[in-house]
């Protein structure tokens, strides 16, 4: 019967499906890589806030209630939420929140994180085989699906949802941190960075005052891209790295044209015109991994009450007053600022999918 089913029923993968697969894999290959799969949802939300210029600094004393609540979870509970988190789609819900509920959710989440406003109960779980009856809110642990009633949610129900999402995020973070700190790979090396080192990387890579930032000063050649991929694999799998870090410059004008440098003004990596050596490529790979790790770690530390907020920007850097003219072309890249912004927005949309 199996042969007949296979012969008669299933053809080759149609082009529309194969095309969709290739598009997804292209996005994966072209992604910055690290932050897409390393950033828990809450840290992604924090970073989104940073991008919007709306970072809120919290009092450590009040946020510690949040930290206390999370740290009260024992190993079994963390393991349970970690397992639920791995059960599938973070957005599996029988209906979307209304606009009013979404606004209320955001307000209550701030109170949850900063003022210790917690739900009276945990999110109810459906028993094995139990079908949701439309009353209250409920979680189906096997599928991670959340069921909401048709009526408007109460504050208590919204708080239960918030609490559930935060416990998931915290559990993923704790399990990953334990694995990382106990290891000896590149992630473990970065996890041992001091707070000062993390702040320094954040300042260099993310404190830019410009709206559109990042990228390279010139495109990598095909040969450099191939060596980048090989060296990145060695970096991640074989522990190959360099002790010499990329230089940090404050403005593009400071760049000497030699070696790899990251510029605080625009968050871009400045590359020499000559072909990059393996050492220079490793500096680039190392700094990019560190940047992704540091934004992730800072976001989590803010949530845990270990930090007041993101490291302050370097105010000594003046924002350039650009005269009104045609969109500038980034030297060597062939992309206009608008094109680069569109590409970055598409990548951020991918990263924020949960």
């Amino acid at each position, binding site marked *: *019967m199996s042969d007949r089913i296979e012969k*008669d029923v299933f053809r080759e993968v149609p082009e*529309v*499906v194969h095309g*969709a*697969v290739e598009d997804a*894999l292209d996005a994966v290959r072209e992604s910055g890589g690290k932050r897409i*799969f390393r950033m828990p949802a809450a840290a992604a939300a924090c970073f989104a806030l940073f991008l919007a210029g709306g970072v809120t600094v919290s009092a450590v004393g009040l946020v510690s209630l949040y930290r206390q609540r999370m740290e009260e979870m024992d190993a079994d509970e963390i393991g349970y939420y970690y397992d639920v988190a791995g059960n599938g*789609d973070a957005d599996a819900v029988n209906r979307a929140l209304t606009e009013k509920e979404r606004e209320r959710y955001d307000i209550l989440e701030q109170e949850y994180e900063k003022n210790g406003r917690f739900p009276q109960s945990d999110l109810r779980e459906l028993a094995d085989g139990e079908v949701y009856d439309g009353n209250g809110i409920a979680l189906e642990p096997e599928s991670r699906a959340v069921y909401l009633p048709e009526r408007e949610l109460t504050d208590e129900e919204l708080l239960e949802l918030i609490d559930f999402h935060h416990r998931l995020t915290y559990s993923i973070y704790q399990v990953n941190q334990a694995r990382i700190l106990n290891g000896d790979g590149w992630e473990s090396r970065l996890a041992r960075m001091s707070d000062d080192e993390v702040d320094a990387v954040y300042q260099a890579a993310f404190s830019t005052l410009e709206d559109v930032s990042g990228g390279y000063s010139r495109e990598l050649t095909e040969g450099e891209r191939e060596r980048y991929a090989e060296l990145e694999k060695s970096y991640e799998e074989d522990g190959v790295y360099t002790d010499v870090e990329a230089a940090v410059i404050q403005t593009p004008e400071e760049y000497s044209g030699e070696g790899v440098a990251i510029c605080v003004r625009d968050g871009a990596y400045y590359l020499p015109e000559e072909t990059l050596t393996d050492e220079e490529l490793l500096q680039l790979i190392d700094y990019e991994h560190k940047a992704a790790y540091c934004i992730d770690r800072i976001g989590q530390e803010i949530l845990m009450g270990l930090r007041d907020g993101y490291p302050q920007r370097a105010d000594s850097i003046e924002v350039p007053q650009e005269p009104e003219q045609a969109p500038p072309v980034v030297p060597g890249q062939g992309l206009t600022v608008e094109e680069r912004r569109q590409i970055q927005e598409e990548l951020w949309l991918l990263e924020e999918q949960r």
Partner: protein
Amino acid sequence: MSKEEFCERVLEAEGSLYHVAKSILHSDNDCADAIQSGILKAYQKLHTLKREQYFKTWLTRIVINECYQLIREAKRYVSAEDYPGWDAENAWELEEESDVLAALVELEEQYRIPLVLHEIEGYSVREIGEILKLSETNVRSRIHRGKKRLRERLEGRIL
């Protein structure tokens, strides 16, 4: 797992993912959407994959969830048993009539999906249990009943 390995393993599983999605969604365009979303979400959540040897099982589960998400969003899924005048052949967009196909799509979903996973994709009972979050006993039962019902439907069509 590096990006390249992730991409290689996704491409290896492409056919299997399509077959599974097709057993739920029927439309190739919908299958494309669900598989694409599933791949991107899998990459984002790669850090939650506990053991790499379970990658295909894990990815399949994510794609199945995406299929159901698509159904919930579109609110257009109606089971074959409930929808009057449902046409199995048109739903599968085939040019040629296939009695096996028609019988398969008429099968209840609770039997159709385990059957496809086991008989076509070669997943073990244990793996199917992990994908669908069912006990092994439950999976065996559904495969057995699915085969029996499929045979009955085929015999009814041939006769």
